[in-house]
């Protein structure tokens, strides 16, 4: 009975979404306040029914209701309860339900937290989000309902969750990622509403900015979690494979990063308006493209198996409708928008524009690498694959350029920056970065040109950021007082930029100085990496909850002093009979020791992969910095101030340049660009 109620509540959610997509929009276009007022209750109702459906599916998993086909395919009575819970989004149908519920959640959040917005605007934003929700609910109900029953032949037990997904990483990775993907729909809805109204002003940018920043923060965490999960769970210590599915999440992140910066310019200076709107459309379209790539089965990857071609067609249609209709609207409305604000060629505006250009270049590279093989295959021109070397060759220089530019951009001012003054400020970062970039290779014992360049770029960003904090916190009343005067969004930016520096440093060092050895070992053998000795002490059997494992004991020592003991495993999961490699990892802030057990290659001999991974944790630490920075920026006071109250108090009096007297602009303050 319950699963049928789940299906009904999906249908009810669809009906409410259809109303939400039309009634408030009609109300706002015809000026009937009564109809507009329906937006908030409808948004709430839509979320409630999706949450009910989600709760019912979760319940079906928890009580092992194998009459539900989705549960039977993705769970098993022996599965621990927390994996039963995460199995709800372990495959296509459930993850789509999670996606749609999160979309409804964002819609509700907009309804709750935007009370001060004009009623017409909020009605339109919610209506547009309702349209997106209609699309996904139709998709779910037509092609992939999670509540389909297997009756009357109910299986005795389930086919189990894919063992790869039985892991903490999977419990949190998809929800975070979806929060990011779907969160960009808010920026999209604001952009479309602004196009409909022809009201693309600084206020519009200020409204959509916090939403975009939060979505971006979640996406950063989601991507980092995916990378971390691949690192320890796929078993072999890689942290980014340029797999098309990973690229599908990187594309909206790159566009979102550009959007966050471009929104800053639009809010502060009222320029780049058309471009910002286009970016908002692009970012959400890339989220949809990601959904299409992952869900349609056009890709071959860990994430995309055994898909139904109907689903692909539906998603492609959804993507096409979104892109074509929003670009048509853009084509008709965007030229209305123009600005008359001047800025010099060394202004912060220009640096942020260059940031956008580089982000677009990076995005284009990843897009080409991801789609080119698909297009060739579709046209029957052969099956090709584009791997890591392509991205290393093209993506890395762009990333370095982003970092170098950022170091300069941090010191730049709105409107105009004096070149001599800028040069003087860059001396210290340049000197420090040079020293660090020379020391790191020396410390690791070999000079690699890419390591030098990467470390220089990372240090450049970090030193420039910290120096900027040092300058801005200078105050007559002491440094602590000065530091307190800076706004939260300023510190958000600082954390975001430091996060990028940390991630870059980690990526550079681990890819240049990581050591990896595949060896054949029997119990009693010792292999060494540099000064580290890995002794294969013993191997034995272990029984897990739903698997049997062969566990090796590996003692690691450095010049005879024991450091740690690692227990890599080879697991055989009973239900699916699949084999999994569980690595033994000794994690640390400065290095990871990583041992993975390969296959048995002789009577008593095993293949082993031994790895030394310097700074690998920094990759994900950087993402945490970025996400915390994003959330801090959103917590800024000015987003909670009622009317157009200038937040100028926070600035440290750093205004320079032409000073054309835009005093009426709220927050006309050079210290407040958010990362």
């Amino acid at each position, binding site marked *: 009975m319950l699963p049928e109620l789940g299906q009904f509540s999906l249908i009810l959610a669809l009906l409410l979404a259809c109303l939400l997509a039309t009634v408030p929009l009609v109300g706002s276009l015809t000026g009937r306040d009564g109809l507009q007022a329906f937006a908030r209750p409808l948004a709430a109702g839509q979320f409630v029914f999706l949450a009910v459906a989600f709760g019912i599916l979760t319940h079906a998993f928890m009580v092992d209701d194998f009459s539900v*086909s989705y549960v039977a*395919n*993705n769970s098993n009575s022996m599965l621990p309860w927390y994996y039963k819970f995460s199995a709800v*989004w372990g*495959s*296509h149908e459930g*993850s789509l339900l999670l996606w749609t519920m999160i979309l409804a959640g964002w819609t509700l959040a907009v309804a709750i937290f935007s009370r001060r917005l004009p009623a017409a605007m909020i009605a339109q934003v919610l209506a547009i989000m309702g349209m997106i929700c209609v699309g996904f609910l139709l998709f779910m109900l037509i092609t992939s309902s999670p509540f389909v029953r297997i009756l009357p032949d109910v299986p005795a037990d389930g086919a189990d*969750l*894919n063992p*790869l*997904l039985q892991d903490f990483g999977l419990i949190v990775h*998809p929800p975070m990622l979806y929060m990011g993907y779907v969160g960009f729909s808010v920026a999209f809805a604001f952009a479309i509403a602004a196009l409909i109204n022809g009201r693309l002003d600084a206020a519009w940018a200020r409204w959509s900015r916090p939403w975009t920043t939060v979505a971006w923060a979640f996406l950063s965490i989601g991507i980092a979690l995916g990378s971390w999960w691949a690192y320890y769970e796929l*078993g*072999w210590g890689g942290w980014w494979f340029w797999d098309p*599915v990973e690229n599908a999440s990187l594309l909206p992140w790159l566009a979102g990063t550009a959007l966050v910066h471009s929104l800053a310019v639009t809010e502060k200076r009222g320029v780049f308006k058309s471009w910002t709107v286009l970016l908002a459309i692009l970012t959400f379209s890339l989220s949809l493209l990601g959904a299409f790539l*992952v869900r349609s089965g056009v890709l*071959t*990857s*860990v*994430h*995309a*198996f*055994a*898909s139904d071609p109907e689903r692909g067609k539906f998603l492609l249609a959804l993507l096409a409708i979104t892109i074509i209709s929003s670009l048509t609207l853009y084509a008709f409305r965007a030229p209305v928008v123009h600005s008359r604000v001047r800025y010099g*060629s060394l202004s912060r505006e220009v640096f942020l*524009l*260059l940031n956008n*250009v*580089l982000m*677009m*270049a990076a995005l*284009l*590279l990843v897009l*080409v*690498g991801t789609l*080119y093989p698909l297009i060739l295959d579709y046209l029957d021109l*052969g*099956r*090709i*694959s*584009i*791997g890591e*070397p*392509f991205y290393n*060759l*093209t993506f890395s220089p*762009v990333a370095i350029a982003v970092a170098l530019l950022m170091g300069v951009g941090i010191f730049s001012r709105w409107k105009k920056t004096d070149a001599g003054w800028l040069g003087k400020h860059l001396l210290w970062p340049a000197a420090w970065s040079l020293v660090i970039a020379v020391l790191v290779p020396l410390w690791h014992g070999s000079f690699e040109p890419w390591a030098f360049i990467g470390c220089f770029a990372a240090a450049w960003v970090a030193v420039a950021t910290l120096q900027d904090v040092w300058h801005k916190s200078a105050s007559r009343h002491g440094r602590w007082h000065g530091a307190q005067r800076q706004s939260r969004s300023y510190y958000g930016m600082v954390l975001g930029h430091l996060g990028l520096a940390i991630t870059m440093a980690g990526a550079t060092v681990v890819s240049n100085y990581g050591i990896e050895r*595949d*060896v*054949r070992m029997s119990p009693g053998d010792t292999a060494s990496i540099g000064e580290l000795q890995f002794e294969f002490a013993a191997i034995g059997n272990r029984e897990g909850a739903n698997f049997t494992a062969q566990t090796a004991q590996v003692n690691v020592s450095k010049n005879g002093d024991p450091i740690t003991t690692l227990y890599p495993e080879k697991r055989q999961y009973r239900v*699916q009979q*699949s*084999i999994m*490699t569980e690595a033994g990892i000794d994690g640390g802030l400065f290095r990871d020791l990583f041992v*993975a057990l*390969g296959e048995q*290659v*002789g009577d008593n001999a095993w*293949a082993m*992969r031994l790895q030394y991974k310097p700074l690998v944790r920094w990759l994900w630490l950087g993402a945490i910095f970025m996400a915390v920075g994003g959330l801090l920026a959103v917590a800024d006071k000015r987003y909670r101030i009622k009317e157009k109250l200038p937040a100028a108090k926070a600035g440290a009096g750093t205004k320079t340049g032409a000073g054309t007297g835009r005093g009426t602009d709220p927050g006309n303050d050079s210290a407040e660009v958010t990362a």
Partner: protein
Amino acid sequence: MHAKRKKRLTIVLFLLCGLGVAVALSTYALRQNISLFYDPSQIAAGEAPGEVRIRAGGMVEEGSVKRDLDSLKVNFRVTDYTASVTMQYDGILPDLFAEGQGVVATGRLQPDGVFIADQVLAKHDEQYMPPEVAESLERAAMLKKTVDKPAEGSASGY
């Protein structure tokens, strides 16, 4: 020329430069790093080039896996049931590598016809068949006898 137009021109030129650099870099990198797929029949017919990295795949022949006794070197034959190719690999094979399973390897074809693989992929799901392999088997008209249809809704990620 107006200052405003001049600025617009500069911006457009900047954008074009960025785009140009991106396009140039990516076409160059693409030319270097594309690897095409060949099946054993094509390799036997001499259609595969010897100098560049290619991908090759098929089913691992029963009884063909031979391991070296004191290193991780391994030899095996990959077949599409009309022709087969010998592959050599030094390293750890993926968990799902087994005789009778589909694999895709990336590497270089040697003049003596041995394929030296630097990467061997077998997918994470035992019911899953790499599409390249499925296609080449179809061509060899053997698909019915060797693989069942992949089961609906078999484990997927996310």
